[in-house]
């Protein structure tokens, strides 16, 4: 694992999301509770909706385009065939860390 610091937890609104740019496309970072962060691909498997623009509730996000609901732990869509990739992310002393190795290797996944 190669944890890199990508910003402060305060930079994502509570129950909101921001995205980060990577060479392989955008990754969405979601903040649910005070100190909980999830990272997934930003693109919805249905028609490519930007998940970072969705509504975050519990540990799920709802796609803004056609309301598919994804579990942020597993990436599985609720009641639909489809899933998003998730990436290890965590919060330490108010900073968001993300595993760069996993991010870089995701084209293979």
């Amino acid at each position: 694992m190669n944890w890199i610091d990508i910003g402060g937890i305060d930079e994502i609104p509570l129950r909101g999301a921001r995205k980060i740019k990577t060479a392989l496309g955008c990754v969405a970072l979601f903040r649910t509770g005070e100190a909980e962060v999830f990272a997934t691909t930003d693109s919805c498997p249905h028609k490519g909706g930007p998940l970072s623009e969705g509504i975050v509730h519990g540990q799920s996000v709802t796609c803004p385009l056609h309301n598919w609901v994804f579990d942020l732990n597993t990436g599985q869509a609720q009641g639909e065939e489809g899933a998003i990739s998730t990436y290890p992310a965590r919060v330490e002393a108010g900073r968001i860390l993300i595993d760069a190795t996993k991010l870089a290797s995701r084209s293979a996944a």
Partner: protein
Amino acid sequence: MKQRLVIIGAGMASGRVIEHLVETDPDAFDITLFNAEARGNYNRIMLSPVLSGEKTYEEIVTHDSDWYAAQGVTCRFGESVSGIDPTMKVVSGQSGHLPYDKLIIATGSAPFIIPVPGKDLPGVVTYRDLDDTNAMISAAGKGGKAVVIGGGLLGLEAAAGLAERGMEVTVVHLMGHLMERQLDEAAGYLLRKDLEGRGISIRTQASTKAIIGAGRAEAVLLEDGETLPADLVVMAVGIRPETRLATDAGLTVARGIEVNAQMQTSDPDIFAVGECVEFDGQLFGLVAPLYDQAKVLARSLLEGVDAFIAKDTATKLKVTGCDLFSAGDFAEGEGREDIVLRDPARGIYKRLVIEGDRLIGAVMYGDTADGNWFFQLIKDGTDIDEMRETLIFGPAFQGGDTADPLSAVAALPREAEICGCNGICKGTITDAIAGGATDLAAIKAATKASASCGTCTGLVEQVLQVTLGDDFVMPTAQPICPCCDLTHEDIRLLIKSQELKSKEAVWQELGWKTRNGCHICRPAVNFYLLADWPLEYQDDPQSRFVNERKHANIQKDGTFSVVPRMWGGITNPAELRAIADAADKYDVPTVKVTGGQRIDLLGVKGEDLPYIWADLNKAGLVSGHAYSKGLRTVKTCVGTDHCRFGTQDSTGLGIKLEQALWGSWTPHKVKLGVSGCPRNCAEATCKDVGIICVDSGYQVSVAGAAGMDVKETERLCDVGTEQEAIDVTIAFVQLYREHAKYLDRAYKWVAKVGLDWVQARIADPEERARLIAAFELSQSIYRKDPWAEHAKTAERYQPLANLTLEAAE
């Protein structure tokens, strides 16, 4: 020869140490006990009952002078130790030096005092010892007002005690909810409600700027400029380990005096115990771990082997009648699962946090009887997989039952208004049921409840159900979403009748089954709250659909469209130039004229939004709200200015209407049209509100549609003057805001409640005036240009980080 043991501080921790020592080996040490307070050990945590008058000081003394004498402890009470010399192994007190073989520092902690002007004025007290408590008791004897700064455990106990003694108390708390370290928002909400029920005012998210007064504290000034009069100010914002002696003596001190698992400091002959220590990076503010430390320390001194292990602690608030409990870790987290039980009728909230097969945290409010059982499960790390389903019901329960969805209605008092139109309260309905009414029709006939607009039908049926039980078969109504069993209409009514002014209040009082709702109910509840309580409620962007959160329409490829407002469809060359320039600068691929007479810039990148807005703002253009559940456009024809048929200034009226209504949030989008004559060039008769100007005045019609359904408007009324036309329109929009279900267009809502009912409300001069006033009040807060506000926070629209380089490695 006996070793000389000197102890600094006669508090709860050292009290225990002495007990253990004399019980195990009374002859091992020659003990001298210093205490800055002029008394020996008492149960400090019982100061709150002393403050509230439930106990006296004598009842909380744990060791009296006879006890110390019998154990041969030399007491130097009222004398504070001013220095330690570890090389010479002496401590210096006010009446001279004293050598030691072993030394224990047990100085506890000092209250934290926020460094605001006026903190040293007489009348400002902290809450730590008997002297503070007595000071508060004597101040309360004079009555008057008290302000308690700090809404944690101590502050709230002080507030409750002072209120009990007849003071008018306000608690000022920096965070969003009370006891935020021990409670989650939901439990914090219930606690607040309980305390407010005893007359204590609570200010959350309030920061103290200064304490003001000439010669003594007279008021607390808040950061937002408000002044709270105060005859007494209690500072209870936290504690800091009392480490000054240790620091001066050169011992290792981080936040507290650092000790190892044997409670030994960096000097092998000096030990420390209690709130003044730091162990393994942790501080301790509750007695349970201190008692463990005391035992370990006594054993270390007597050459036993023991090691201190920091364990989880549970918190309770000692305010009679406020039952709360919290233990373990109850933050949300990856791989954690919540079990939530809410019983609004009894004001109960329980939340368990499970990770894997273990219970790791619990928060409870209202019913804490099972608290210790849960705490034990947490401490023991018991495998709870087998009882997961029934865990939340506690140890006594094995079987399975769900909370009663009707409990919210059952809990309403007799005076609670059920039918707003006719002012019928619950008691009238239950009386009618007692008088023989067994169904909705009979209730309508007997009481008029639900006989008007009908939005309360669901509630009336629930009252029937609650009162008649199985004798009443409930027609099935569509609940808002799987988070809650109530319909939109019921939720709206309950928000009004129970005065629920926050999302947390709604979740708790209406029995939500999820922690913070979902994408279906959150936007609806957010709208209902802001429509009903514009002053008290704070809009929540995270409960809005992306379009409203980003103030632009999201398109299928994730780009956005930007539509500036053009009042009544009128523009000018300067605005057109600014729009053209913006289109060039931000590479807008498509520029389109919309059906509502505005110009749409399609295909703008999310991160460019704040910049294009700023440019358009500079040219005087504001957001057209083309994305909102709110006023979109007022379409107009050219009217008298240019048209040979025009009877009135339709363009001018359209502009006035748009300027009156813009920025308002509504259950769904709202579109208006104003035509200058019955030729109706503005297609006003398929809008939410359409106005046709005629020779004699204005024909106002409502509830049209030209979308999924195509529907002609229905005539609301004819009025003679332009001002009346505006008034009627505003009153109609406000009525729609107050009653419609979220995401029902006006035509759907009017079909439900009936045009007659709407006409009657608008025709009633008093009601019309009330509606207009309510709308204006809401506009005073919500009519603002979101573009201007968001252009300032441009960074939020950018990616959080750019890893294109890293990821490519």
